[in-house]
């Protein structure tokens, strides 16, 4: 602060929106604002690091693939960018139900970053600026009493006036990297940390916390013996991430990943050196994620496991660096070398970049609304790891929502909210803003209570409309989804109403596919419900069908096969909506609601839920409190 006070405050530009940070969240936020016609500046400490992937070299995976699909349906960029730059692709969980199928692609990291930068550079209304943002400038809105955004100030003293700010600072705020006893005060990958903004945010009354995460070592491909590992191939038929990518364009030659394992020797070295691990020695103050444990954590917490998997993944086509998935660590360099060299195939490995842990400042996301706007502010938004999440996909999804809503704010329109029944993005954001998280938040399919409806295959059907209404999806793209929806409904209805008699041809067809013969006539839909039969197979006894595209057929298949389960979930969603639609007025005074328990009153005051549904998900608010609240609201609206 003090060193900044000497700088001359000069106004450099006047824009609509400033986006702080150009990682996965920042890129989506900035593109959304610019595409919605707003003059936008995106700030980064290094233009060379736009859309950097500082950890794993892949996009997607279980439930994260869903996020990318949804983001794409809304008009985000991540899906398109990975389709341009992937080097291996795999649909995970194909042996399981359609709800948990999830796409994951290995990225060429440098390509990914370069391609995203190209998109940003060529985006109309978007200015890229290499600078550290040190101050968020506000005044007070006389009408609402809230703090109003008026601009940002960068390290040189320059000021950008604006109406809205989206904070996407990732892991850069007061970042410090730890590799054993060696500590550097930098962001990921040795990049410059942002050391000034935290103080400003604290002064603005924002509650900060400190989280930690980590990454494994990168190794020289030439020093690895792949013959001792299992080769892992990509899928034969590649499915693109983006609904706008032509599947024919992504059938490329793929590169392999490799699987190997740790062993007792590895674990022994780790155990013997735990006192030199900054986490176990107590040097690290931040809270790390349980789902992404360092190898030290795995060895300590799962002591009975004899071995852990290690995935060796390429970082790109034009580099020898390989990522050592499964072995992130903050142990000192000498221990890392010893430990990695016990793993079959890594006996002679050369480490290019050491594994390290990183600590950074982020916020308690309970300070945000589901629009990702800060409570108590006009025009301040936040997305990504800054909100206490982890992962590129989680970041991008929030960045897009924060960006869209910053634009909606500037345009004086209603925010775009995705609820828990509409998408994983809704679950992600609701969990962040409504529940109490004490570690970096990762998406998981089990967090979604309506996951049978929120599949990656139907993200376009679920969310294209929202993207269209916001203005990020073109008329043509929206028309396509409407047509698709119609074709699916017609075909499902036809199958449900077409009877198939127990004739010879049908019985032969059934016995050919090991399916029980018919006693009486049934509908095509009933036959399709049999696990051994599919829409494609049934074509033999269903000559009248009209030709349909693969994506329509996929939906027809799923809708009929899992009809019972899907209907049950739709019913649950209806119940959920009823209470979700009961809005709580902004000027509610919880002290006026008698009979609320003290804890509930305090929680409601601090969370400011917008609906009774959201209130019911706050821990510490009981069903009885909700009843009391409902009755209060009823009298409140009656009085009006």
């Amino acid at each position, binding site marked *: 602060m003090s060193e900044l006070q000497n700088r001359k405050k000069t106004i450099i530009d006047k824009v609509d929106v400033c986006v702080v940070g150009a990682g996965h969240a920042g890129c989506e936020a900035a593109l959304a604002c610019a595409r919605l016609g707003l003059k936008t500046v995106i700030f980064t400490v290094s233009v060379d690091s736009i859309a950097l992937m500082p950890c794993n070299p892949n996009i997607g995976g279980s439930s994260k693939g869903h996020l990318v699909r949804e983001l794409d349906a809304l008009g985000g960029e991540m899906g398109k960018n990975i389709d341009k730059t992937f080097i291996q692709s795999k649909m*995970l969980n194909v042996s399981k139900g359609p709800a948990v199928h999830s796409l994951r692609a290995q990225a060429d990291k440098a390509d990914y970053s370069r391609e995203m930068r190209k998109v940003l550079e060529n985006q109309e209304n978007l200015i890229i600026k290499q600078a550290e943002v040190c101050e968020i400038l506000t005044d007070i809105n006389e009408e609402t009493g809230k703090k109003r955004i008026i601009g940002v100030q960068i390290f040189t003293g320059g000021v950008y006036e604006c109406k809205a700010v989206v904070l996407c600072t990732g892991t850069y705020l007061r970042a410090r990297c730890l590799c054993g006893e060696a500590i550097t005060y930098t962001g990921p990958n040795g990049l410059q940390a942002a050391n000034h903004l935290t103080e400003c945010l604290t002064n603005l009354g924002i509650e900060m916390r400190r989280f930690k995460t980590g990454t494994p070592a990168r190794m020289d491909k030439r020093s690895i013996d792949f013959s001792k590992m299992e080769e892992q191939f990509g899928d034969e038929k590649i499915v693109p991430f983006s609904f706008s990518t032509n599947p024919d364009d992504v059938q490329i030659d793929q590169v392999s990943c490799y699987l190997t394992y740790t062993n007792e020797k590895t674990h022994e070295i780790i155990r013997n050196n735990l006192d030199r691990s900054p986490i176990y020695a107590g040097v690290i103050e931040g809270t790390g994620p349980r789902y992404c444990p360092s190898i030290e954590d795995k060895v300590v917490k799962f002591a009975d496991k004899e071995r852990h998997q290690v995935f060796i993944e390429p970082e790109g086509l034009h580099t020898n660096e390989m990522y050592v998935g499964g072995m992130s660590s903050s142990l000192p360099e000498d221990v890392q070398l010893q430990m990695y060299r016990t793993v079959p195939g890594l006996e002679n490995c050369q480490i290019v970049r050491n594994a390290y842990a990183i600590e950074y400042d982020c916020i308690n996301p309970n300070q945000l609304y589901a629009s990702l706007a800060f409570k108590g502010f006009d025009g301040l938004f936040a997305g990504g790891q800054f909100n206490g999440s982890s992962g590129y996909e989680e970041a991008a999804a929030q960045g897009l929502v924060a960006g869209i809503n910053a634009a909606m704010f500037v345009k004086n329109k209603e925010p775009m909210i995705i609820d828990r029944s509409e998408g994983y993005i809704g679950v992600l954001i609701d969990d962040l803003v409504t529940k109490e998280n004490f570690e970096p938040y990762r998406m998981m399919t*089990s967090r979604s209570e309506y996951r049978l409806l929120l599949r990656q295959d139907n993200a376009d059907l679920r969310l294209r409309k929202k993207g269209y209404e916001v203005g990020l999806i073109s008329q043509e793209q929206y028309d396509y989804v409407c047509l698709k929806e119609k074709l699916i409904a017609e075909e499902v209805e036809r199958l449900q109403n077409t009877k198939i008699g127990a004739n010879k041809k049908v019985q032969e067809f059934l016995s050919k596919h090991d399916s029980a013969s018919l006693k009486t006539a049934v509908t095509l839909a009933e036959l399709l419900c049999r696990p051994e039969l599919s829409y494609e197979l049934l074509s033999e006894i269903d000559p009248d069908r009209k030709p349909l595209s693969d994506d329509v057929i996929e939906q027809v298949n799923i809708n009929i096969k899992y009809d019972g389960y899907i209907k049950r979930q739709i019913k649950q969603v209806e119940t959920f909506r009823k209470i979700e639609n009961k809005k709580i007025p902004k000027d509610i005074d919880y002290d006026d609601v008698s*009979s609320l328990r003290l804890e509930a009153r305090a929680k409601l005051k601090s969370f400011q839920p917008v609906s009774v549904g959201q209130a019911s998900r706050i821990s510490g608010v009981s*069903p009885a409190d909700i009843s009391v609240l409902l009755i209060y609201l009823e009298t409140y609206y009656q009085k009006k």
Partner: protein
Amino acid sequence: MKTDTIAAIATAMSNSGIGVIRISGEEAVEIADKIYRSKNGKKKLSSQKTHTIHYGYIYDEDLLIDEVMVLIMRAPHSFTAEDTVEIDCHGGMLVMNKILETVIKNGARIAEPGEFTKRAFLNGRIDLTKAEAVMDLIESQNDYALKSSIDQLKGSVYGKITSFRNKIIHEIAFIESALDDPEHISLDGYPNELMQTIDQLLDEMNRMLISFQNGKVLKEGIKTVILGKPNAGKSSLLNKLLGEEKAIVTEIAGTTRDVLEQYINLDGIGIHIIDTAGIRETEDIVEKIGVDRAMKQAQEADLILYVVDSSKPLDEDDYSIMELMSSKRFIILLNKSDLNTVVSIEDLENLCKDDKDHYVIIQTSMKDETGIDQLEDAIKKYFISGKIDFNNEANITNIRHKEALSDAYESLKLVKKSIEDEMPEDFLSIDLMNAYSSLGKIIGQEVEDDLVNEIFSKFCMGK
């Protein structure tokens, strides 16, 4: 808060002539139709006009339960302003409970305390002053839920339910971690393993459901406390009523040192019977605790059975017991009529002259099994005449428990079916989760972050 269809017994729980079961909500008529049959079997309630009454029968599938009158009131012209059906049946707790259970089985859920009134209010049918009372009622729900779920369950049931839940959440966590991290955790051959766990759980839960039905688990009914001096024959009385040797009966005075509880069903009247330690001045610390508990139980009793050893003269201890019983309904059993009696009915009548219609005196001999029938008749008479009643709330709670347990049971059956149909594993976790949360209702626990915590603590995931 849901806006689904709710049901409850609307009249007081007693063996009065007529009982009413009320159903309210969108599916009220539809549900009633599933269990109602008219005389000719053709009438459909859903095609009847509002505010009409229909004669017919209530069936649980093919089992006839009762002959009834069914009243239909369509929204908004009912107390709750929702579609409402009232089933007027022949009172009697067993019949009412059975009809309520059938209604629930067909899609309604048990109403929370005050829920009909709450709905009436929310739908604009009653005014603010009444609403205040509803608020109070709802406010008590917190305590109520806790009390009904934990206090009313014996430790062993609580432990069992918890162990079911632990097993189920472990299985879900395993499936979910495999789904989230398919390359680290494999589900090959898992459905067969799960099947064994499910079969075992279904078996145990079924046994528990049966015991719920027999009422051994439930503490519902008239709270009846057996009092008396040591060795007057209290435990023998309990055994005679139960028809089994549960209480330890010895010749040594002071054998029952704590409180024994049992449930009996006397021709449809539920009786929650509590045997106590003999009451006397004592220096023995353990026995003294028993005596104190007995006094406490007596204070909360709906009915007291006072067992007097007629072969021994009355003394100070008897007088203090009499003191304890005043203002309560009680039955005095002049026991050991097979021995030389020194206490007569008159002696006792003189002692409790003041409240004649509060008590009955019966001569009994536990040894010869005489007087037991008169005792049972006396209890029934008390009940039918409305002189004693039992705790409504406890009964509803118990049906709630049973509802939750059988929901969990049905969910596990669906899991079993999904395994047999070779459904993908992610479908299994849907019904497993339903079973888990149903069981949680019994012990008053919500799901929240259990699953995520279990996944992270039990399975090693991640990059």
